């Protein structure tokens, strides 16, 4: 399978805490992207990190990429209840592959 894995599958934290999600992939990549899906809605693009980058920040988001380990992590700092959603990493060279997703629940 060309699919990868994300862990944890589910994460429940209190508002204000940090949330870390990990993604492992199997193919070569040009870059890796993270998406969020709110319940019943479409996928929203969060951040793109290129294969020659190791870390990238966007607001409260911090993404790291380790191409030698074929892994990436997404850190959400100072989480809010509105961050409750499923988070997916997506990668590939000629097509998108998605991880299995992490379901994040931020309790107010």
């Amino acid at each position, binding site marked *: 399978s060309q*699919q990868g894995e994300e862990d944890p599958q589910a994460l429940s934290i209190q508002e204000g805490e940090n949330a870390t999600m990990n993604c492992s992939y199997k193919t070569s*990549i*040009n*870059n890796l*992207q993270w*998406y969020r899906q709110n319940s*019943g*809605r*479409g*996928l*929203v*693009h969060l951040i*793109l990190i290129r294969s020659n980058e190791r870390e990238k920040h966007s607001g409260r988001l911090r993404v790291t990429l380790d191409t030698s380990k074929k892994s990436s992590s997404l850190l959400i700092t100072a989480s809010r209840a509105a961050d409750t959603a499923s988070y*997916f990493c997506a*990668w*590939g*060279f*000629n*097509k*998108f*592959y*998605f*991880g*299995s*997703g992490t379901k994040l629940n931020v309790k107010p």
Partner: protein
Amino acid sequence: EAGVTQFPSHSVIEKGQTVTLRCDPISGHDNLYWYRRVMGKEIKFLLHFVKESKQDESGMPNNRFLAERTGGTYSTLKVQPAELEDSGVYFCASSLRAYMNTEAFFGQGTRLTVV
């Protein structure tokens, strides 16, 4: 600017019936993709259009699925006849440049339930 729009948002059909899903990409986006998420599992690639041409349809599960993009604008995905295992959420995405070189914009998805 309008985003990617999908119709319908929900569809419930009986096994053996036909359903057609529609996707309107962002204007000017030549690249259009179909994905689906079945039973809460991973999101899987179905196919990729560049304008009206099928660039990659390696993810189409079987010949009950037919995708078209006449005129290179909107796309339809027809399932005929539908089976129970086709239930899931079907996502459409469009992008200005191909694949992973740029951000892809996703629609809200069509939730298909086959009973």
